């Protein structure tokens, strides 16, 4: 039975993207991003997963481009949805473990290469004391992250939320030594959301329960989300939507500030 549509909405107050090849990520580890003029320790990204490195770069760009001050966001939450985090590091660990057993397993592996790792690192980088959680982790990470971001927290209790996505495209083909035999690029997107608010730049979840798509839904990619954000950054209105197999639709609508002002005038 089909039900009446219901909508959950958040205003997008900042957005940015970042991407880099595996080879380019090494040097980025040595220069952790600065937020609000505060330096992170130089070793902060030394053991971080590549997806954490790129997600923090997207976060830095979003903060800077929107002129946000993380010190004014201390109660904000972070939802991060990486896809197949740890493939490169995990292949290295598996190979070493096979050769040398338990002593070869790095003590930081679980902390740095798990579903929570991007969200945890972002909360430290920004100095936020709101919730931080990882969503998804594999195929479906984008829909998990978007749905959770719009429904997990009560807008009254949580003023805002950083939503981070990261993904390799293509997936790395690791050699077991911490390197890739192909040339994968890691993409990330950062969105700052104010929950329960309306704006011309919105993230919206609309349910039409009972109305399920007839065709299988292709898995979205972070690069598609990034393209939408980059189109908006170039001054064009941009939209991206995703149908969900349980009878819902998620829509990202970005109207650049200049267009918004023109429309208002």
């Amino acid at each position: 039975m089909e039900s009446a549509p219901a909508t959950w909405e958040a205003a997008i107050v900042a957005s940015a993207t970042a991407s880099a090849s595996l080879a380019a990520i090494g040097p980025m580890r040595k220069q952790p991003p600065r937020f609000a003029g505060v330096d992170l320790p130089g070793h902060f990204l030394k053991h971080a997963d590549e997806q954490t490195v790129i997600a923090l770069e997207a976060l830095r760009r979003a903060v800077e481009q929107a002129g946000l001050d993380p010190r004014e966001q201390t109660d904000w939450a972070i939802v991060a949805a990486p896809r197949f985090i740890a493939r490169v590091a995990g292949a290295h660990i598996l190979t070493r473990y096979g050769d040398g057993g338990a002593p070869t397993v790095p003590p930081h592996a679980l902390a740095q290469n798990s579903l929570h790792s991007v969200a945890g690192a972002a909360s430290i980088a920004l100095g936020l004391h709101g919730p931080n959680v990882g969503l998804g982790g594999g195929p479906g990470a984008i829909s998990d992250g978007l749905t959770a971001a719009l429904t997990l927290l009560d807008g009254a209790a949580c003023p805002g939320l950083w939503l981070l996505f990261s993904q390799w495209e293509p997936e790395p083909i690791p050699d077991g030594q911490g390197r890739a035999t192909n040339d994968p690029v890691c993409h990330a997107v950062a969105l700052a959301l104010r929950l329960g608010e309306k704006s011309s730049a919105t993230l919206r979840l609309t349910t039409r329960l009972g109305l399920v798509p007839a065709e299988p839904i292709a898995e979205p990619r972070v690069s598609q989300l990034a393209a939408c954000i980059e189109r908006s950054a170039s001054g064009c209105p941009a939209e991206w939507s995703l149908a969900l197999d349980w009878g819902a639709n998620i829509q990202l609508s970005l109207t650049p500030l200049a267009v918004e002002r023109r429309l208002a005038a």
Partner: protein
Amino acid sequence: MARGEAVWITGVGAATPLGNDFETFADNLLAGRSATRQVSDQQGDKVALHVGTEVGPLSAPRGMAAERFARLSRLEQMAWWCSLNALRDADLADRPEGLRVGLVLGLGGEWYRHWKLDAERDGRQIFEPSGQETPLVERLKQDLNLTGPTATTGAACASANYALALGRRWVALGLVDVCLAGGVDNACPITRANFANLRALSRRVDDAEHACRPFDLARDGLVMGEGGAIFVLESAAAARRRGQRAYGEIAGFGASSDAAHMIIPSDDPAPAALAMQRALADAHLAPSEVNYINAHATSTQVGDRAEARAIRLVFGERTAATPISSTKSMTGHLVSAAAAIEALACVVALQKQTLPPTINLDDPDPQCDLCHVANQAQPRKAEVAISNSFGFGGSNTCLALRKAA
């Protein structure tokens, strides 16, 4: 459902080191039985001895062919066992058509575990991405014919509290009629090696039953375990309409971040305290109304003291009168599923009006000066319980549970 209406637990599925159904788990928990044993991880000719807890053999749950169940991985078996039994317990094994059932699982290391298991079977999925991988929640959804949304949450040892919080919200928002929510986890040898190399594991391999001793002065580390618990959540009104009994209400949730370190808990107790304060505020409860705290306390020197400081910050003078225990002393630390099995321990307290103990608490650490339920269960009035779960990445969570009205 109406905004602000209570969300009840109406079904429980459990695969735990203390038993694989609610009553057996409750009996063993309240009897103060340790499930800790010596476990060995062999890699080639190298053997690493640890202490750990394990789930006993699981047979195919009703409604599933034994051969099919036997083909599942250990993690899958626990997930299927818990989900099917929770639905059956809630009288939802045969569901009315159109009932929207969602699923949220706390499971932080799914893909690494998947790749490790594949490698043990001579697979190369980590080296050769196939594009064919399907998340556990999606496989469960298809197999159980669920029609609502699914999600996997990861906050390390706090993962399942986020799963329960998200499931509760989906029910409260009307996104689903019913939500399966909880966590499952099994410690693979690499995970144990990771914690051992952090020097976070207890080294009492020759005295396994006494290895996990949260808040005790002689504690020397945690004990890793496996298992899970999955709950059926639905609105109180829907449960009443079905005449379904309630194990309890998920009354509130709070979360915060230390913003300090990826591994080590913050010296500052304020962020962890904030998670508890947010849970109490969400449940409209005062600290004086809490009858039982199920502590995160894993039996590490740093973590137990940090939690004790945070509890004193929240409860002030009430600290001395608010009973607390760490049931990890019996179950071990189930990592992604820890919060789920500890929510179950709170449900036991609410249902049995008896508080489970911290076993092996012979010499309480003066820096963990709390109102311990030491070594023996205590029959006590229990209307409200809170369950702390803290994870890597500075993730602090607290779930408030209340006896269903």
